[in-house]
C-alpha cells in the first residue's frame, strides 16, 4: 500500500529524517512512534507530498505520491483547525469536494458522517459554536470524508473523552474492514498496543524500532515469565528468582533456560496454572528505554538533541 524507501530530509544541512525505509500493508493499522522532534511530522508531510524528500522515494500503491495519487490519502495533522465561521456541514462538505466528491455527494457524505459521530444536530450551526471536543470530532471527520484508502492520523484521540475514543476506534475498524489502511502517529502507547498491528519508532530522524507490536514487546522482554498459579513456585529448575504481587508471579529465568522447560517443570510438580506468558514490557517502557539509551542511533552521525519539530 505504502512504501517508504531510504527517505532523507535535511534543513540547513541538518538531517531531520535519515534513510528511513518501511512498508505499510493494505488493511493494517500501523503506528509511527517517537519522541518530540524525532522527525515524525516531517515524514508524514513527505508522505502526503506537502514537502518533498531530499532523497529516497515514497510510493503509494506502487506509484509516486503526486496530485493524482494524493487523493487516496487523508491526513489529520497534529496542528489542525477549522473554518470557525462556516457551518459545520458546509465545512465538512468542502473537504469532501476537495477530495474529489461532486458537490451534492459531498454534502450527503458530510451529513451521513455527522450522523455517524452524533453531530447531526449541529450540522447547521457555525463551527465556532461547537465545544472543543466536538470540534475535535469534526476534525477527524474531515479526514474520514471521501473514503480515503490511506488514513494518516497524527494524535487523533487528543481531547476526546473515552466514549468518543471508542466511537472513533470503532470507525477505524470499520474503515479497515472496508479495506482502508491506517497510519497512526501517537504518544498514547496503550492505544498502539490495543489497535495497531505493526509499529515503527523514530528517534532523532533515525528509524530505531520496526516490527509487529508483539515482536517489539517480545524483543525487549526480560528473560522471565509471568505466571498466575496455585502452588509453590520456588525451587523450580531454570528459575533464578520469584517476585509475587497480587497473585501474579514473575519468574526470572537462569541463562539458557527456556519458558517451555519452566512450564513443563511446573506442570510436573502439579502446580495448577491459570495463566502463563513470557514477561513482555509495556510499550511505554520500551519507548522510554529506547529513547533514554539511544538504542538504534548511529552515534557517529547523531544530530542535535531532541527539540521542537524543526520548521522548514
Amino acid at each position, binding site marked *: 500500500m505504502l512504501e517508504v524507501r531510504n527517505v532523507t530530509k535535511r534543513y540547513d544541512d541538518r538531517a531531520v529524517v535519515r534513510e528511513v525505509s518501511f512498508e505499510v500493508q493494505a488493511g493494517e493499522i500501523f503506528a509511527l512512534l517517537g519522541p518530540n522532534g524525532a522527525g515524525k511530522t516531517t515524514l508524514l*508531510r513527505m508522505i*502526503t*507530498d*506537502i*514537502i*518533498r524528500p531530499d532523497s529516497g522515494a515514497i510510493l503509494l500503491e506502487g506509484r509516486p505520491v503526486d*496530485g*493524482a495519487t*494524493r*487523493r487516496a*490519502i*487523508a*491526513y*489529520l*495533522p497534529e*496542528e*489542525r*483547525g*477549522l*473554518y*470557525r*465561521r*462556516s457551518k459545520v456541514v458546509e465545512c465538512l462538505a*468542502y*473537504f469532501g*469536494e*476537495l*477530495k*474529489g466528491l461532486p458537490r451534492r455527494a459531498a454534502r450527503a457524505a458530510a451529513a451521513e458522517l455527522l450522523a455517524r459521530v452524533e453531530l447531526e444536530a449541529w450540522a447547521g450551526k457555525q463551527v465556532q459554536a461547537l465545544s472543543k471536543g466536538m470540534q475535535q470530532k469534526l*476534525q477527524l471527520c*474531515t*479526514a474520514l470524508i471521501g473514503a480515503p484508502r490511506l488514513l*494518516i492520523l497524527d494524535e487523533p484521540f487528543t481531547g476526546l473523552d473515552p466514549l468518543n475514543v471508542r466511537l472513533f476506534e470503532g470507525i477505524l475498524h470499520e474503515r479497515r474492514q472496508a479495506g482502508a489502511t491506517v497510519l497512526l502517529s501517537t504518544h498514547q502507547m496503550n492505544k498502539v498496543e490495543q489497535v495497531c498491528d505493526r509499529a515503527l519508532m523514530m528517534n532523532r530522524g533515525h528509524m530505531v524500532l520496526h516490527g509487529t507490536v508483539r515482536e517489539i514487546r517480545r524483543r525487549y522482554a526480560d528473560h522471565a515469565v509471568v505466571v498466575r498459579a496455585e502452588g509453590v513456585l520456588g525451587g523450580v529448575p531454570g528459575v533464578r528468582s520469584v517476585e509475587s504481587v497480587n497473585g501474579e508471579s514473575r519468574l526470572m529465568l537462569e541463562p539458557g533456560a527456556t519458558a517451555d522447560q519452566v512450564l513443563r517443570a511446573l506442570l510436573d510438580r502439579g502446580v495448577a496454572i491459570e495463566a502463563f506468558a513470557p514477561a513482555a514490557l509495556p510499550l511505554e517502557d520500551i519507548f522510554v528505554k529506547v529513547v533514554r539509551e539511544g538504542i538504534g542511533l548511529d552515534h557517529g552521525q547523531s544530530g542535535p538533541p531532541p527539540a521542537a519539530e524543526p*520548521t*522548514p
Partner: protein
Amino acid sequence: MNGDALRRVMTVARREFLTTIRRRAFLFTVLGTPAYFAVVMLVTSAAEVRERREVLRELSAVGVVDSSGLFAQATREIRTQLRAENPFAQARGSRGLPDPRSLSGGGQAGTIEEFRASVRFYPGMAEAEAALRAREVDQVIVVPESYLEAGGVRRYARSSSLFSGTDGRAIGAWLARNLVRGRVDSALAARVARPVEGERLYNLGRGGAFELKDDRRQLVDIMLPLVFALLLGMCITIGGQYLLQGVAEEKESRILESLLCAISPGELMTGKLFGLGGAGLLLVGLWSAIGALTAGPMLATLGTSLPPWILLLAVAYFVLGYLFYGSMMIGIGAVTNNMREGQQFSVWITLGSFVPMIVFTSIVSRPNSALAVGLSLFPLTAPTSMVMRLSAPGAVVPAWQIGLSLLLLAAAMSLALIGSARVFRIGLLLYGKTPNLPEILRWARRGA
C-alpha cells in the same frame, strides 16, 4: 492543469467568493464607499457655491479713493451675476463638427443670480479707512495717481475669504467698464468688462477633428481617468487585502496543513486568486452600476471620447495588475503569522498602486512626460498610471509604450506568481517566526 485540478481550483474559488460576499463588511463596503464619496462631494461643492454667494452678498458697499481722476464719471453701483451651474443639467451634445451657430449659448444651463453693491467715493484714504472701520463700507479701493501708467490698485478689506477672487473679479469688471465709460459706446464698454464671455475652445480630438471643449465635458474628461484608475487601484487593493486576510486567517486557524493533503499549494493559491479577484471585481462592478445609475444620464448626454479599445486595455491591466498584487499579498500572508503583521508589510506594496493618484494632475495634463511614461512602465504603478494616460483628454500614447508596459507587467506578474507559489508552499507550514527577507528570497528562488 488537468480537469481534476481545475475542479479543485474552482471549488476553492467558489468558497472564497461566497464567503467574502456573504460577509456584512462586503455589503457595507459596496454601499458605504459610494455613499461616503457622494456625501463628501455634495458637502464640499455646496459649501463652495455657498461661500461664493456669501462673499458677493456681503459686498454691499465699496468705498473708492480715486487719485487718478479716471473714475469721476463711474457708475455708483457694482452689478455681478453669478451663474449657479448644475453639472447634472441637460447639456447640448458636443460631438461632431464644431458649428459655432449651433453652439451659441450651448451647454451653459443654470440659473443666474444678480448681486448689487453701492459705490461711495471718498476724498482721501483717512475718510475711507474710517468708513471701513465703522462698517459703512465693506471694502475700499484706492486708485493711485499713476494708475494709467503703472496700475497698482490697492484694496482694503476687514478680512478676506478663500474665495476673495470672486469679489476681486467683480470689482475688476467695474473698473474696466468705468475706465472706458463715456469714452466709447456702451456696448463696447460692456464688452471690455467681459471680454471672454461665451468663449468656446476647440481641441484636436483623438479622431483627428477639432472638438468643442465644453466645461462639463472637460470635467468628465478629467474625472473619468481618475475614477477609472481609482476603481482599478481600489479593486486591486481590496482584492489583495481579501487575499492577505484569507491566507492569514487560514494560517491562524491552523487549517492549511489539512487542506494541503487534498489540494496542492499552487491550486489553493490559484483558487484564492480567482475567487477573491471575482469578489473584488463584483465590488467594482456594483460601484460602477451605482455610479451609472446616478451619474449615467449626464455621461450619456455628454458622451465620452474614450474608444472601446481603451476599455479592453483597462481590463488587461486589471487582470495583470490584480494577479501581480494578489500574488504578492498571498506571499506576504504565507510568511507572516497574522493579519496585523501581514498588513504592516502589505501597506508598502499597496501604496505603490496609489502613487499615480498623487501625481494625477501631472499625468493627465502631460500624459507623455517622463514621469507619466516612467510610472506607466514600472509594474507596481503601471496599471493605474497607464489607464490614466490612455484616458487623459487628447492623449496619444505610443503603441510601443503600451506594449512594453504590458510586457513588463506580465513578466513581473509571472515572477511574482512563481515566487509566491514557492514561498506559499513553505510559509504556510511556518508558525511562530517571521522569516527575514534573504530567507524569503531564497525560498522564492529555490522553493521547498
